[in-house]
């Protein structure tokens, strides 16, 4: 049901692009086939850390059917990266993890590519390998990047190695406050590396056009980032590279080339196409993806909190050691986010957290769905239950005692405009079965080996990279929307069409949102960071209004009215209150040819204005609380989730079903991280479970029904008060489940995953099994 003031906003029409997906049209990157294309493949390092002594490609080049073989010498001597420019697209001098690309081949068939890769002779001089980020920080650790400086802001006297960035959070006087606390809890939590494991493999395709420009097809989340990387790494101007986006079969931040120095398969593919003088397509194998593309990092988190007897938190100190992987990638940003969030989203008058992001010989950190947040929340929200237990308070009451209110500040947010956290907590508690009695929340009676747990979450939403939109009203009144974000089941084809339809008074089915072509689409940072509805939504709204204003200006004289008195309804531009005075939208749009050429509305999301607004009036973050009931098998450690509720504040949900879908999907992803997912390494840095046989993703039989509830009344920074919904549901699930396991067994598991083995170990160590 649409809110009364809107025609289509708040409804959930069928997803644009649904039909072609259910009938199996070949719309994804992997379905591409270029005329005369060659197949490309990448040779990856056999060592997690080694010097490259020599590479001999002569045998590979001789193989019939091979059209190009490239290594670092075939490309300009240029590096790329995010926080630091620390990476070559094809390794030069050194390899730093086993997925590091060393060479690439273009050949007539995948079989010849495979043979040719085998014939490339690389001589390595192995170096000591470091897998654990705390080990990598030690002064005696092997150095991964000889020419990368330590961060300038490291505290005095700290002797470390391989630190890529350092963040510190400091509020008040935490040491003093901690000393004065009545109760102190000091814990360590650890999460492991997981891979986003989108189902559609990454591809890249490239061809050199007759005029020498390079066209690249990518199933990447940030096509403009791809353009930047390709242009930079091949040493050509931006307007000589065109990136065309295909549809994506999932991404989750793992297909965000250009945002991170993730996999660079697009520049490698473009280089092959240039050298081979024929189109080239690379398709990664899923097992190859696990070892080489960007991941969600593991984090080690030390967290110590002091509270008063009455449950008021007075101080927190802590340390985050965040794994960057072999290159800086998104590690610094994710690690900073994790460090900030370790300060929590409760009132925190005194706080000091040190955050180190550390290079290791493993896959590189990418902006994977809520980077840094789920890790921090696993620590913070598990720790909250430990505090509550020591205080003898129930976990709901304890949290409510410390929630911020409007006007308060929390770590990372200097001023809150409104706060939905309380409502999400009480709603989730009620839906999972707690009964409120005074200030206390009494858990429901549960069966043997069953437990109940809650966890809250936040996602520090602040102004991020902006983006634009162009809205064209065609001669027949249909609408074409250009944004810089791609569609992978998110806002671009769910909510964005509704915004254009709402502002232009046309049916949703008359709106097309086209895919990204960097020649024509407005710049955008990419479909990441829960910002599609905020950035592209704002831009689309403004662009649609701009287009509408142009239409009204042209129609005004014909209708003998002021433009301010006009509206569009059912494809008619008419005078408000006098519907008989109208002209068809198509008529005005066609007539634009004679007046302004064409109706093109332009809008952009103004980053600075958003920041100013937040500074003046405060932020309204998208808070959430999840809760679950689990059953633990005390003899095997298996955990079954019996009931799961997710309560979210997403501001105004423009397309409620899409929002629920994001919440349910993100929750499931973190349930996977909680129960069964991790990338496992041996001491040499080899990934031991690259394929789906042993990289276990949750299947339907282990997933509870995820019951989503939205709370309302807390408008956000997005259009019509929307808030981003793509990531935040990833934040609470691991802690919610860990807390439920604790409630069931009395055993606190500090390390993910909460696999049967880790749970049984915990039970046995506590003498409970």
């Amino acid at each position: 049901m649409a809110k009364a003031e809107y025609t289509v906003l708040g409804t959930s029409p069928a997803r644009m692009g649904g039909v072609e997906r259910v009938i199996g049209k070949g719309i994804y990157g992997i379905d591409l086939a270029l005329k005369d294309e060659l197949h490309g493949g990448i040779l990856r390092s056999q060592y997690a850390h080694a010097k490259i002594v020599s590479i001999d490609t002569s045998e590979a080049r001789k193989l019939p059917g091979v059209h190009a073989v490239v290594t670092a010498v075939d490309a300009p001597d240029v590096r790329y990266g995010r926080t630091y420019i620390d990476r070559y697209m094809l390794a030069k001098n050194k390899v730093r993890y086993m997925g590091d690309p060393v060479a690439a081949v273009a050949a007539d068939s995948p079989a010849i590519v495979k043979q040719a890769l085998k014939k490339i002779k690389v001589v390595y001089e192995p170096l000591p390998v470091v897998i654990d980020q705390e080990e990598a920080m030690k002064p005696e650790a092997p150095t991964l990047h000889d020419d990368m400086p330590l961060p300038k802001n490291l505290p005095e006297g700290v002797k470390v190695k391989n630190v890529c960035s350092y963040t510190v959070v400091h509020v008040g006087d935490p040491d003093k406050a901690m000393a004065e606390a009545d109760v102190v809890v000091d814990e360590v939590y650890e999460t492991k590396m997981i891979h986003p494991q989108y189902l559609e493999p990454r591809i890249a395709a490239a061809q050199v056009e007759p005029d020498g420009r390079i066209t690249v097809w990518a199933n990447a989340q940030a096509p403009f980032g791809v353009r930047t990387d390709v242009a930079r790494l091949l040493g050509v101007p931006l307007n000589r590279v065109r990136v065309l986006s295909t549809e994506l079969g999932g991404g989750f931040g793992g297909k965000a080339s250009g945002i991170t120095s993730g996999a660079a398969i697009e520049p490698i593919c473009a280089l092959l196409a240039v050298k081979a003088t024929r189109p080239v397509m690379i398709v990664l194998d899923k097992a190859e993806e696990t070892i080489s593309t960007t991941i969600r990092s593991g984090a080690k988190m030390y967290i110590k909190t002091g509270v008063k007897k009455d449950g008021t938190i007075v101080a927190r100190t802590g340390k985050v050691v965040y794994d960057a992987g072999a290159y800086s990638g998104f590690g610094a940003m994710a690690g900073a986010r994790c460090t900030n969030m370790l300060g929590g989203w409760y009132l925190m008058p005194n706080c000091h957290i040190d955050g180190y992001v550390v290079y290791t010989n493993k896959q590189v950190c990418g902006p994977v769905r809520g980077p840094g947040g789920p890790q921090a929340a696993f620590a913070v929200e598990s720790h909250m239950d430990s505090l509550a237990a020591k205080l003898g308070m129930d976990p709901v009451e304890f949290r409510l005692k410390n929630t911020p209110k409007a006007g308060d500040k929390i770590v990372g947010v200097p001023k809150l405009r409104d706060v939905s956290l309380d409502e999400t907590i009480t709603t989730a508690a009620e839906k999972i079965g707690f009964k409120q009695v005074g200030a206390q929340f009494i858990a429901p009676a549960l069966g043997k080996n069953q437990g109940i747990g809650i966890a809250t979450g936040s996602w520090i939403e602040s102004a991020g990279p902006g983006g634009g939109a162009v809205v064209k009203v065609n001669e027949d009144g249909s609408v074409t929307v250009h944004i810089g974000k791609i569609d992978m089941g998110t806002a671009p084809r769910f909510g964005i069409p509704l915004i254009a339809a709402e502002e232009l008074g046309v049916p949703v089915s008359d709106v097309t949102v086209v895919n990204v072509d960097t020649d024509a689409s407005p710049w955008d940072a990419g479909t990441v960071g829960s910002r599609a509805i905020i950035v592209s939504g704002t831009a689309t709204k403004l662009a649609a209004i701009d287009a509408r204003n142009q239409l009204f200006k042209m129609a005004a004289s014909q209708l003998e009215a002021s433009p301010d008195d006009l509206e569009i309804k059912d494809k008619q531009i008419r005078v408000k209150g006098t519907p008989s005075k109208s002209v068809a939208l198509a008529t005005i749009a066609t007539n634009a040819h004679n007046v302004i050429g064409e109706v093109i509305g332009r809008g952009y999301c103004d980053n600075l204005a958003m920041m100013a607004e937040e500074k003046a009036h405060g932020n309204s973050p998208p808070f959430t609380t999840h809760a679950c009931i689990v059953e633990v098998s005390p003899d095997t450690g298996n955990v079954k989730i019996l009931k799961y509720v997710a309560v979210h504040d997403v501001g105004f949900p423009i397309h409620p079903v899409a929002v629920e879908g994001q919440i349910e999907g993100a929750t499931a992803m973190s349930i996977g991280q909680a129960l069964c997912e991790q990338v496992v390494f041996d001491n040499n840095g080899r990934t031991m479970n690259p394929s789906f046989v042993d990289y276990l993703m949750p299947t339907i039989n282990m997933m509870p029904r995820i019951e989503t509830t939205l709370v309302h009344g807390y408008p956000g920074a997005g259009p019509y008060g929307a808030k981003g919904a793509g990531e935040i549901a990833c934040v609470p699930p691991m802690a919610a489940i860990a807390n439920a396991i604790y409630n069931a067994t009395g055993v606190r598991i500090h390390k993910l995953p909460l696999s049967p083995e880790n749970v049984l170990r915990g039970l046995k160590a506590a003498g409970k099994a």
Partner: protein
Amino acid sequence: MSLTINTTINGTPVSASAEPSTSLLEFLRDTLEYKGTKLCCNTGECGACTIIFNGKPINSCVTMAADAIGAQITTIEGLADGDTLHPVQQAFIDTGAVQCGYCTPGYIISVKVLLDRTTKPTAEDIEEAVSGNICRCTGYTKIVDAIQLAADRMAGRS
């Protein structure tokens, strides 16, 4: 060595060559250009490549193209009736069970086989039918809704 594969896809006889090592998935996608069946794990672990083979759902990525000789194969492209979507296809759209859509063809095939067998699937029936289909986007909740909605519509209950 080249084999001649004579088979029937969505009711249409086809004949094309394949190597002995060619999988049925590669044959469908690369030789016959049926792009609807998807390549994902390529090891029989995810169900994205599910097709109906002589009435049964199988993973085409771990089946030889050679085994398709003489078989009746249904792919996602064969479900709609002209412009009219199959009830399972329509239900997936209507419940929001299609996000990125990459798992969708494999799911629809598995669900169609289930609902042809029974329009009153129990939770166990559903689990059996689609435990081999992984979805990374939806968390499965709306997929279960879609299966229920399709069942109700196919049984005339809705």
